[in-house]
């Protein structure tokens, strides 16, 4: 029924980005963070240890059901919190707190030249057994020392250290 739609015909191209979130899940009981091993067939970073993450998509928003319709501007509240829960469920099969903490941000340009904004958050583990899936084949809970024995994407060791400091 909605007359609204999402489209880019009026967009300024040089302001468009992918919006990517990666998440450091922190387990309070032993002060460790979750890392997942990427599938060896992945195009980017095959076989490397990483954090779960994902890209926001137009399909994440139901235009018929905005939280607020502010004079033609359709608002959807807490898209990041929803996205974080969804990613963690999809890639690791566990549950996390809805309160997220900001860790850092990176702009990056992929090999296909697409610009992306990555915002990395830390969040508390709340339950469930880890089941790596959808591009991931293994998992480990590690602290800032243990991460060094894994072949990981560079920089994530610092995020583990930052997360542990943030929560302890």
């Amino acid at each position, binding site marked *: 029924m909605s007359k*609204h*739609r*999402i*489209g*880019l*015909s*009026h*967009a300024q*191209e*040089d*302001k*468009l*980005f*992918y*919006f990517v979130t990666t998440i450091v899940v922190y387990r309070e009981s032993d002060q460790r963070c979750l890392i997942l091993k990427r599938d060896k067939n992945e195009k*980017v*970073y095959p076989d490397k240890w990483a954090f779960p993450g994902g*890209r*926001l*998509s*137009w*399909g*994440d*928003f139901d*235009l018929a059901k*905005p939280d*607020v319709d*502010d004079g*033609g*501007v*359709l*608002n*959807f*509240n*807490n*898209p*990041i*919190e929803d996205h974080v829960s969804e990613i963690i469920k999809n890639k690791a099969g566990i549950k996390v707190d809805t309160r*997220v*903490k*900001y860790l*850092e*941000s*990176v*702009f*990056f*340009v*992929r*090999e*296909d*030249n*697409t*610009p992306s*904004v*990555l*915002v990395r*958050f830390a969040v508390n583990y709340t339950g469930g057994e880890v089941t790596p899936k959808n591009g991931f084949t293994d998992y480990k809970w590690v602290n800032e020392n243990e991460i060094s024995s894994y072949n990981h*994407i*560079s*920089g994530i060791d610092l995020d583990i250290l930052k997360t542990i400091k943030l929560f302890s």
Partner: protein
Amino acid sequence: MQKREISIDDAKRDKLFYFVANVVIYREEDGRCLILKRDEREKVHPGRWAVPGGKLEWSDLPTDKPTRINGDVLDFEDAVEDLLVRESKEEANVEVDTKLHYINSVAFVRPDNVPVVLVKFAARYVGGDVVPEKGGFTDFAWVNAEEIKKYECIDGIPEEVEETIKHFKRHSL
């Protein structure tokens, strides 16, 4: 280092967004936050009180100078920090700390159909006399959670100011 052109020719269209970040600036000495009055001539929210912030643009990325190269991926660290430091200087002439606290986020679809992700942060004021940017803003005020109620703000700003003050009181210097 080869300079890489940014392009969305090979991007999946249905995953492209504008990215906007805003910052609530907190002044430690009196526990107040900075708000700015939007110009009456602004198309969106004319005359209402807001906080500094802005949209990210490709030209903000010096593609010949990545801070880190991760395989085939060029990284530019502290992206949001740089954006908010720049916007705070441009829109209010103030310096802010780069240690950001996440407040909340909203996604919205503009009347011209373009989808936007807006992320709201809080940061400490470092220095500088406030000068609202000509053409964009006409006034400013430092307010606490009570005082802001007297100002006609953009939706959500009073709650975000309250959350910012709570956060920094818990983590006072």
